[in-house]
């Protein structure tokens, strides 16, 4: 039997506001337990929520970016369930009238195929706190610092047909929310996480199979692995004559398996109803126009511009626009390097990204500024240093605050372009290697490289390679 995989994702993007969605408590990450849980977050008797204006603006930006409809009249609802990390016994969310409705986004797979994925809706809601399961005399500890942190839950259509598509979609949304400046995208801190709804059906069948929901997956790699595992589990189960139960499953990255959390039909009756403490959020055209005016250039547009403006390949433009900060770094480097786009692209994608990865940094805290990098690229372009020597210069730039010119100067790395000096060295080498010279002249062309190597070695790599080639050819 040929199986078709059907996947829909619910992405939770934490909106990077200063204060919480309904209170003035800080959203900063990593504070001591319950020190950022104010009376509203704790759900003390008598407290009331007031909506943070930033979350509305951020949701509107997202809607505009995916060509979605912004609800002119969206409503907050209470989602009722008991859990110790949910202080009020209900989560304030949006149900019937979400703020963002029906948008779409184009993804691109590794083989270059493109596909439109529908976004059913995106709604605002508050996050819950955290349960800490380390042992407090057999008790669980509750930290409510995260309670009330604003989330945008982005719900896709079940449009994805493979784990790869799901990852591509998730990456696309991840890059988009960062571009918009509405989410820091930090997956390790849980600022960007997703639930995946996975089902299978025989190829050609219309009706969807019973789905399972994989909870709280917080890395791209895990999304792929969790979905693939779950698909395999479902296929095996059905082929053995079993039935899929609609349930929530947890992906255990260590064991690399998904396991059942709770069966949906038994427990969950959320009793949604409009939150009477909050009024409808009304958005008008003027507000949307103002938001539209602040929309940054989005990833797809930026990539196309990079291809057109900098003559970059599709792949290089894709890498360099993968984040707004990286793209900005590239453009600043190009300016500093007086338009050396190719050099800038190669050095950033190679040495800079490599160096950042090695030290676990990202582009915003790179030890090497675009300006200093550009300074070095100018020196490559004008032949002051060779590409090989430039690696040494780069190393020094990375380790210090010095400018490229100062490094080249103080370490004497300047390329030798004086043909007299090069000729002198070449004459010596020819004189000292008569055997090789004879062989070369007899037709052993490969030995040319040997001579180049000898010259470079003698000149500590500083000779201009083009000149070395030219003079050697003449002399030999």
């Amino acid at each position: 039997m040929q199986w078709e995989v059907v996947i829909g994702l619910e992405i939770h993007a934490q909106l990077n506001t200063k204060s919480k969605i309904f209170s003035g408590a800080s959203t900063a990450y990593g504070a001591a337990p319950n020190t950022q849980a104010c009376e509203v977050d704790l759900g003390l008797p008598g407290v009331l929520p007031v909506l943070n204006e930033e979350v509305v603006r951020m949701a509107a930006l997202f809607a505009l970016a995916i060509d979605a409809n912004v609800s002119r009249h969206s409503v907050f609802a209470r989602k009722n369930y008991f859990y110790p990390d949910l202080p009020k016994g209900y989560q304030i969310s949006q149900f019937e009238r979400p703020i963002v409705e029906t948008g779409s986004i184009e993804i691109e797979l590794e083989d270059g195929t493109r596909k439109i994925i529908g976004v059913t809706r995106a709604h605002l809601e508050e996050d819950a706190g955290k349960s800490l399961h380390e042992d407090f005399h057999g008790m669980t500890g509750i930290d409510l610092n995260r309670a009330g942190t604003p989330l945008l839950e982005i719900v896709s259509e079940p449009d994805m047909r493979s784990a790869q598509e799901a990852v591509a979609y998730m990456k696309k949304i991840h890059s988009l929310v960062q571009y918009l400046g509405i989410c820091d995208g930090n997956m390790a801190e849980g600022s960007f996480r997703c639930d995946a709804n996975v089902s299978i059906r025989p190829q050609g069948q219309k009706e969807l199979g019973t789905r399972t929901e994989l909870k709280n997956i917080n890395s791209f790699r895990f999304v792929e692995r969790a979905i693939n595992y779950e698909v395999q589990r479902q296929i095996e189960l059905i082929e053995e004559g079993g039935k899929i139960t609609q349930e929530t499953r947890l992906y255990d990255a260590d064991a690399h398996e998904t396991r059942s959390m709770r069966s949906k039909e038994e427990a969950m009756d959320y009793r949604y109803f409009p939150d009477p403490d909050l009024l409808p959020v009304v958005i008008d055209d003027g507000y949307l126009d103002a938001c539209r005016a602040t929309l940054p250039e989005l990833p797809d547009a930026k990539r196309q511009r990079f291809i057109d403006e900098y003559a970059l390949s599709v792949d290089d433009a894709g890498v360099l626009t993968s984040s707004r900060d990286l793209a900005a770094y590239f453009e600043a480097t190009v300016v500093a390097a007086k338009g050396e786009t190719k050099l800038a692209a190669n050095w950033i994608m190679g040495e800079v990204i490599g160096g950042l990865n090695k030290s676990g940094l990202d582009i915003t805290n790179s030890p090497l500024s675009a300006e200093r990098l550009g300074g070095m690229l100018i020196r490559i372009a004008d032949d002051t240093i060779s590409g090989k020597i430039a690696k040494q210069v780069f190393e020094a730039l990375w380790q210090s605050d010095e400018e490229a010119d100062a490094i080249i100067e103080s370490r004497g790395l300047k390329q030798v372009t004086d043909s007299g000096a090069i000729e002198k060295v070449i004459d010596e080498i020819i004189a000292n290697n008569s055997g090789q010279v004879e062989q070369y002249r007899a037709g052993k062309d490969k030995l040319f490289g040997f001579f180049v190597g000898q010259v470079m070695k003698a000149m500590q790599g500083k000779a201009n390679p083009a000149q070395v080639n030219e003079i050697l050819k003449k002399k030999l």
Partner: protein
Amino acid sequence: MVLDSDKVKKIAHLARLGIKEEDIPGYAQDLNKILGLVENMSAIKTEAILPLAHPMEVAQRLRADVVTEVDQRVHFQKNAPAVEAGLYLVPKVIE
């Protein structure tokens, strides 16, 4: 009887209310009486009428995104039945 004892038990569970077995029939009886009263609503057709969630039909006011709260953990936790290391303690949560 709209609500039998089984249904009352389900609702009590949904609302996490511990109700003694012997009290269930009494609750069922009272809830059915109230539902009987509520049934009077069916006297009129309402499909064409918009629901009114709030007496004041105004829009939500928005708050500036400013941190206004300071740490009051010690103060707030004076009311807590069980805390340790700044955490609220509950019986072990099994996932």
